[in-house]
């Protein structure tokens, strides 16, 4: 019984959409779906308090590219520029932590440009930072203070 159970566990695990490669989906929609599952999972990890154990931002970038590639083929047009802006802001926070002030400015500028393109009434990095802090606070047990520090 154990080998059957183990085989199925491996099968189920490989079918989990946030684990499997979004480019490997059998059709366009599955690729978009897997991309969003992976993006959602990476966002959860990126929002954790404390030092990150891996690099969820690279996973986010990869998922966004996969969705961008597949979405038009199934007539979907998700607001990926908002996802890119959020990613740029998280990278700006990382750059700030590493005392890379020029990098921080560049990422913030990128975030603002993307939000402006997306029609935001307030495309400033300061506003986006408030939203990201709120997302992180809502998404896990971080206090607002910890969420700010965790960025």
């Amino acid at each position, binding site marked *: 019984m154990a080998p059957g159970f183990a085989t199925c566990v491996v099968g189920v695990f490989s079918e989990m959409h946030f684990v499997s490669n979004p480019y490997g989906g059998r059709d366009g929609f599955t690729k978009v779906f897997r991309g969003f599952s992976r993006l959602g999972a990476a966002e959860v990890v990126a929002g954790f308090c404390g030092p990150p154990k891996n690099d969820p931002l690279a996973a986010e970038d990869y998922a966004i590219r996969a969705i961008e590639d597949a979405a038009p083929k199934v007539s979907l047009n998700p607001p990926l520029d908002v996802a890119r802006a959020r990613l740029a802001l998280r990278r700006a926070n990382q750059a700030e932590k590493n005392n890379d002030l020029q990098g921080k400015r560049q990422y913030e500028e990128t975030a603002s440009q993307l*939000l402006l393109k*997306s029609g935001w*009434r307030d495309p400033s990095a300061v506003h986006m930072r408030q*939203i990201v802090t709120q997302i992180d606070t809502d998404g896990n047990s971080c206090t607002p203070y910890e969420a700010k520090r965790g960025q």
Partner: protein
Amino acid sequence: MKQVAKYALLLLAAALIGFPLGYRHARSSMGDGAAILSQALALSEYETLANLQYKQADATHGSQAQLDLLNFMEQLQAKQKIAVPRALDYDRARALMRLAMLEEEAGNNERLQQYLRQAQENLNHADHRWYSEDKMRKFVAEADTRSQY
């Protein structure tokens, strides 16, 4: 020699019976959980981005994002077995009500009524109750005041 063959046969029979039993047990205990987790992650991420557009962007971008979210939900329902159908009905009703609110702001009463009716139908499907227009407005207003996205 006969003894060895007997044990080998027994082992083979046990494996042949045990393998499918183990497989079925794992599938029933873990398969649904995996589906729920994958769908929840994908849908909530799509909704977060679409709702950010609704709350933060101009009406055109906001409306576009909600329509796209509805399209995603429809394709999801057509392609996959929905793990928690009731939750999808709620989410769809909320997206439709947000579209209705945008149409109201733009002064399109006909479209407002159309989206409102569709949202009511979705909630009715989820709860087997018919919600009045006032209740529907409260339903979306509560969700909108809770956060920035």
